[in-house]
């Protein structure tokens, strides 16, 4: 039995099921609000959700029972002197220290909780880098959306920012360095590509079994790093497009990554309407199309956080949701697919509880 947390433009849907035809909605929370992202900290069982009201603004909520009462976390807010206001909470990720969670926001800032998500404080060292570097937003805002802890080592962390590149720390966030080398921003003039920090990271995930390895979906490129994110190699050859947003890795196999390409920046739907996940099992040397059971003539968009995984290796399951409101699942690592839910609201995120 899997429990899916599906964030949508019209609330959080919790679905439970095992395989085709068995998934049912067990809970809808935050009706009418955008649920940007929802996850469950498996260490504590606590659910956390990023919720944005069109009227009353963004907030981070938590609960031990998604069908019960949710409480509002405190601390994710900008001070008077910052001259910015919170727009959206993009990502919530358990850290490696006890009770530690990380959150990333728009405007781009990294936030840390040490009490399981009830209170938060900003990482000031990275905030200073933002000010000094005059970070610029991408189309979706100035977003810190990718947070990659290093399994077993709370000192090491890599984050991805749209559009301010990859940032790496080895001292728990006391200091940060860039991971820009090898990334080619083809939306910049050729003579400005090497010096720019306007690097539009779309998604980034670590390979837990080989933590120095990261995979990245860029704004026009798919990259792999084998040195903690310091340098990057383009591995998009073999994909129908270098553009997209969703990405996951397989915890058991550091050579594996899965993504869903979109046609391009000017046409953010799946190429030719042929909905498919593309996977690699050799570090990006080759890619295979995995669309058995997915619809054709499906001109849909899959957003950044809307592809999720459960399990690993031979037991890897994949789930994703589209802006059309459909959610799809695979219990055989993407080889075959079934419909989990046909008609939800536009899907912003999918995670397995």
């Amino acid at each position, binding site marked *: 039995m899997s429990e899916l947390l599906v964030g949508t433009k019209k609330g959080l849907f919790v679905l439970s099921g095992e395989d085709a035809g068995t998934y049912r909605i067990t809970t809808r929370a935050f009706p009418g609000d955008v649920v940007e992202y929802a996850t469950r900290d498996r260490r504590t069982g606590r659910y956390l959700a990023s919720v944005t009201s*069109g*009227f*009353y603004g963004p907030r981070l909520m938590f609960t031990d029972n998604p069908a019960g009462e949710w409480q*509002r976390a405190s601390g994710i*807010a*900008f001070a*008077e002197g910052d001259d910015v206001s919170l727009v959206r909470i993009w990502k919530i990720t358990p850290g490696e220290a006890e009770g530690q969670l990380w959150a990333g926001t728009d405007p781009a800032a990294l936030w840390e909780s040490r009490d399981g998500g009830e209170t938060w404080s900003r990482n000031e060292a990275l905030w200073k880098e933002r000010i000094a570097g005059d970070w610029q937003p991408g189309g979706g805002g100035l977003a810190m959306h990718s947070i990659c802890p290093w399994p077993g080592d709370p000192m090491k962390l890599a984050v991805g920012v749209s559009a301010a590149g990859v940032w790496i720390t080895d001292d728990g966030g006391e200091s940060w360095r860039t991971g820009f080398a090898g990334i080619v921003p083809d939306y910049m003039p050729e003579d400005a590509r090497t010096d720019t920090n306007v690097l539009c990271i779309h998604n980034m995930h670590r390979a837990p079994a080989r933590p120095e390895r990261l995979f990245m979906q860029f704004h026009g490129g798919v990259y792999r790093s084998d040195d903690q994110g310091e340098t990057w190699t383009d591995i998009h050859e073999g994909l129908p497009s270098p553009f997209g947003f969703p990405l996951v890795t397989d915890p058991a196999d550091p050579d594996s990554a899965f993504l869903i390409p979109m046609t391009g920046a000017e046409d953010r739907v799946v190429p030719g309407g042929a909905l498919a996940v593309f996977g690699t099992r050799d570090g990006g040397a080759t890619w295979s199309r995995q669309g058995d059971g997915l619809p054709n003539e499906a001109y849909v968009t899959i957003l950044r956080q809307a592809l999720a995984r459960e399990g690993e290796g031979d037991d890897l399951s994949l789930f994703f949701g589209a802006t059309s409101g459909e959610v799809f699942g695979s219990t055989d690592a993407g080889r075959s697919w079934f419909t989990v839910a046909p008609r939800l609201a536009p899907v912003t995120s999918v995670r397995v509880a």
Partner: protein
Amino acid sequence: MPVVTLRAPLQGLAGGNRDLQIDGGTVGDVLRTLEATWPKTTGWILDEHGAVRRHVNVFRNGERVDETTSLGADDHLQVLPSITGGT
């Protein structure tokens, strides 16, 4: 003392109260006291800088006002979602 009228979902965050008598010299004062009295309302009407949110309208005796507006003892504040909000 000014009276503040709330609608759902703010009403639910303020203990189910529709009308609240809250003292204060300005709209901002009253709304901050509302947050202090009913902490679950914190951040819903005022943003982190203390300004009325862009897609929330606050009316004093039927006239749209902001957090700096002065209040008298007999004033009536209504907090309503703006038609420009929502998704």
